[in-house]
């Protein structure tokens, strides 16, 4: 029997598997936020909602908040820093993750 724990898929035995290794779930099981050394932090006051950070994020980790401003999805954000680098008004800062 196939179990699901959150986004994780747990097989018990061969019979559970699709024979051709067909996918059954999404990579959202993989919380890549843990990869981060630095975290982007949005200064909402500065943000002009231009969408540039959203456009360039390779990890779909920028969302819109209620005000239409940028909001980071820390579950997945890998901390690459592209958003900070590309923000035209420097509304995003990268700060070191706590060690």
């Amino acid at each position, binding site marked *: 029997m196939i179990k699901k724990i959150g986004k994780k898929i747990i097989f018990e035995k061969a019979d559970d598997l699709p024979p051709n290794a067909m996918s059954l779930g999404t990579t959202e099981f993989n919380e*890549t936020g*843990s*990869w981060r*050394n630095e975290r982007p932090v949005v200064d909402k006051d500065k943000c002009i909602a231009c969408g540039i950070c959203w456009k360039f994020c390779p990890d779909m980790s920028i969302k819109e908040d209620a005000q239409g401003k940028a909001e980071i999805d820390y579950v997945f954000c*890998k*901390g690459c820093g592209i958003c900070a680098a590309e923000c035209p008004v420097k509304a995003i800062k990268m700060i070191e993750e*706590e*060690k």
Partner: protein
Amino acid sequence: MLEIRVHGRGGQGGVIASKILAYAFAMEGKYVQAFPEFGVERRGAPVTAFIRVSEGKINIRSKIYEPQHLIVLEPTLLGAIDITEGLKDGGFIVINTKKRPDELNLKVKNSKIATVDATGIALKYRLGSSASPIVNTAILGGFAKATGFVKIESIVEAIKKEVPIKPEENAQAAIEAYNSTLM
């Protein structure tokens, strides 16, 4: 047989650290094995490596499931993954951090914890870039000091033979770590 596990992140040189350490042991006449966790980890993702050390030939060629000792290159990992999985009692854990062992609050039963600011030392010797300093040589000094299993001289020599870029500085970093390890 010594069985050691190394934790780091993709790009940090944890696998090389394991190899240098194995080499240091080999120079002391030991039989060694050093190998990475066999994965496809990308830059940033957690990676693991292993070392076996023995007086005699090592025939066993399966992975290490229950290491006795740990080396942790990246303090942020302590929160991200369970580094103590399968850990045997009574060994050493050497961690790269500015903190003192007792500040770490690690849930381990009978392991001796040592810490060393390998990042600080790496930065001082300009190993790697300031954004991603290479801490793998420094921490080996800490391991030598904490465990006493291998001489710092062997570590230094292994570094000099194995590290192609800045071998001297790396060696110095290991020595400085050796001298500044806290337990």
